[in-house]
């Protein structure tokens, strides 16, 4: 899992500034469909020029939350403010918000140009200005030469850009994107991700993106809101979400992780020691945990933060013996699946630094794995 650096040079972290005013404020919003609670008391602050990703599995309520921001659904309770204005009960056509639909919803009976001009005509913008803004927008999404085409003459990626241009040309305060890249193939998706970020930075529009794809969320977003069963589980920057997951769910949803269940045997403000039935040695973590001694906790260790050695480590903590069960050679890295005594399988990724292959561990070899005291994240739920 890699997170390419965002092109912005300056640090952009308005959520750390206590004086910054949130641009979009979702306040205790609940949405029920009959007995089913789709969104459960969600409170979120999103700042100007953010790309905020709502991440979660299908059915977690992220799309319902997005549709409430667009105005297609009314919250059962709670309030939504955009730029300080309460828009909770405004219909979609009276909100300073535009949406890019998952199916793109490009009007099939209009040309590309007419599609993009649609919202401006509706606003009653002067003809000359419409022509200029539509032209500029089509240039920005590189659809200039397709202006006169009908949607059925376009590819999926081009239709996606029509949908984007159509939403952006209205200069919305907030752009909502529902699975913007889901319908594109892998190559095009990667390319489009960076294009989206560039366009967002050129125009300075605030984006809220719904996605089930954690990789997409990691690449696009300034912050991620992880959702499950209608609730926000954790909010944070991509690296916070990856390095400091607050729960097992968060750790397992984003990236891959090795989760060791254990008991707290030593609990000090500066360190903890955890004993796990799966491991030969205790886990020593160099930060404190707020939990009762003897309580069940989980230590989450990312596969790339574990190393494989042939010699038994001399340390008292943070290692265990294992047998190589499977190796997947990916080129840049290799993924090792190691079987512990308990039968639990540990996933380890190692960069292939050297081109030599003879010296590497091989199938069914007995090895040891170890990690840093700083590597495990201890979660209590």
């Amino acid at each position: 899992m890699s997170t390419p650096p965002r092109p912005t040079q300056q640090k952009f972290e308005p959520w750390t500034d206590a004086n910054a005013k949130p641009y979009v404020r979702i306040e205790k919003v609940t949405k029920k469909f009959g007995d089913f609670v789709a969104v459960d008391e969600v409170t979120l602050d999103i700042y100007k020029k953010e790309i905020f990703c709502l991440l979660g599995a299908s059915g977690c309520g992220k799309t319902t939350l997005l549709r409430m921001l667009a105005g297609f659904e009314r919250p059962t309770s709670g309030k939504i403010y955009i730029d300080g204005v309460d828009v909770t009960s405004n219909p979609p056509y009276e909100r300073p918000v535009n949406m890019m639909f998952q199916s793109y919803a490009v009007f099939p009976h209009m040309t590309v140009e007419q599609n993009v001009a649609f919202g401006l005509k509706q606003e009653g913008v002067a003809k000359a200005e419409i022509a200029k803004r539509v032209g500029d927008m089509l240039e920005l999404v590189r659809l200039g030469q397709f202006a006169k085409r009908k949607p059925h003459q376009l590819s999926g990626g081009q239709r996606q850009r029509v949908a984007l241009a159509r939403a952006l040309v209205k200069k919305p305060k907030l752009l909502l994107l529902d699975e913007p890249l889901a319908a594109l193939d892998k190559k095009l998706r990667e390319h489009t991700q960076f294009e989206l970020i560039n366009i967002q930075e050129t125009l300075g529009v605030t984006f809220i993106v719904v996605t089930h794809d954690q990789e997409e969320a990691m690449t696009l977003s300034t912050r991620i809101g992880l959702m499950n069963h209608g609730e926000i589980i954790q909010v944070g920057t991509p690296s916070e979400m990856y390095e400091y997951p607050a729960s097992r769910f968060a750790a397992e949803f984003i990236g891959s992780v090795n989760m060791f269940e254990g008991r707290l045997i030593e609990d000090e403000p500066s360190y903890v020691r955890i004993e796990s039935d799966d491991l030969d040695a205790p886990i020593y973590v160099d930060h404190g945990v707020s939990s009762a001694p003897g309580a069940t906790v989980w230590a989450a260790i990312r596969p790339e933060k574990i190393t494989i050695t042939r010699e038994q480590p001399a340390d008292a903590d943070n290692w265990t013996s294992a047998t190589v069960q499977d190796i997947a050679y990916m080129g840049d890295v290799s993924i090792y699946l190691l079987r512990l005594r308990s039968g639990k399988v540990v996933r380890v990724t190692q960069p292939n630094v050297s081109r030599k292959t003879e010296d590497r561990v091989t199938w069914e070899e007995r090895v040891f794995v170890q990690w840093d005291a700083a590597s495990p994240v201890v979660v209590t739920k």
Partner: protein
Amino acid sequence: MRGLLKRLGVRGRNAVTAVPYLWLIVFFLIPFAIVLKISFSSTQIAMPPYEPLLHWTGEKLLQIKLNLGNFAFLVEDNLYWMAYLNSIKVAAISTIICLLIGYPIAYAIARSNPSTRNILMLLVVLPFWTSFLLRVYAWIGILKNNGLLNNFLISIGLIDQPIQMLQTDFAVYVGIVYSYLPFMILPLYANLEKMDLTLLEAAADLGCKPWQSFYKVTLPLSWPGIIAGCLLVFIPAVGEFVIPSLLGDPGMLMIGKVLWTEFFNNRDWPVASAVAIALLLFLVIPIMFFQRAQDAEAGGGVHRP
């Protein structure tokens, strides 16, 4: 055997497509050719009541006698013009009324709950399970002076005297609209039902109030359905004979009735055939429009995700 069939160009695929072609040739093209032939003939009191077109004169001379007089007669006599124009007027007004009633019905069914949709569609086609003639006769019972409708209006005290409804243009419109309404609803429903509803959300998102979304998105996307429905009502309504003769004023000029009179009362087969041919030409033009609309749709005019 197989080789022989192959040499004759009879393959499995051709044999299958031959069936509809054969059907059309035997039951459409040949009858049309016969009618066309008769339209160029002249009447005579005989069996059949028209002169043959082809004559063997002498030994090796084939004489073809084309009589264009029938068509000239249609043009000269105002009766036919009036009948054609009146038929088109009646059919056009009926089509518009069908559209105005049928569109909201089709729209409501298409947007209704999927489980009730099929029941509603069944109700639309249910009248077809009774004979067409019977249903038109039923309207006589409803519209006549001491019929259901007049008796009802008198009983609630809205009128004292029965209104003459039967044998008026009103009755003809009621009959045609009633009989052909399903032909308007069916294609409109098929069109509206497959429409992608997120397009309406997109329109709302881009600033359209609901009626604007309808006018700018739903209506243009349902054009093919509107055209199909209108032609399915208009074409048969132009040649309609049963409804005007049962419900309408006996003096009402409709081309279907004129044709009937020429054929059965006057026994003038050639003129009747000429009337039929001219009517066909009147109808071919709308059919061509229909074809073009269909082609436009097949060409991708309608969004298929």
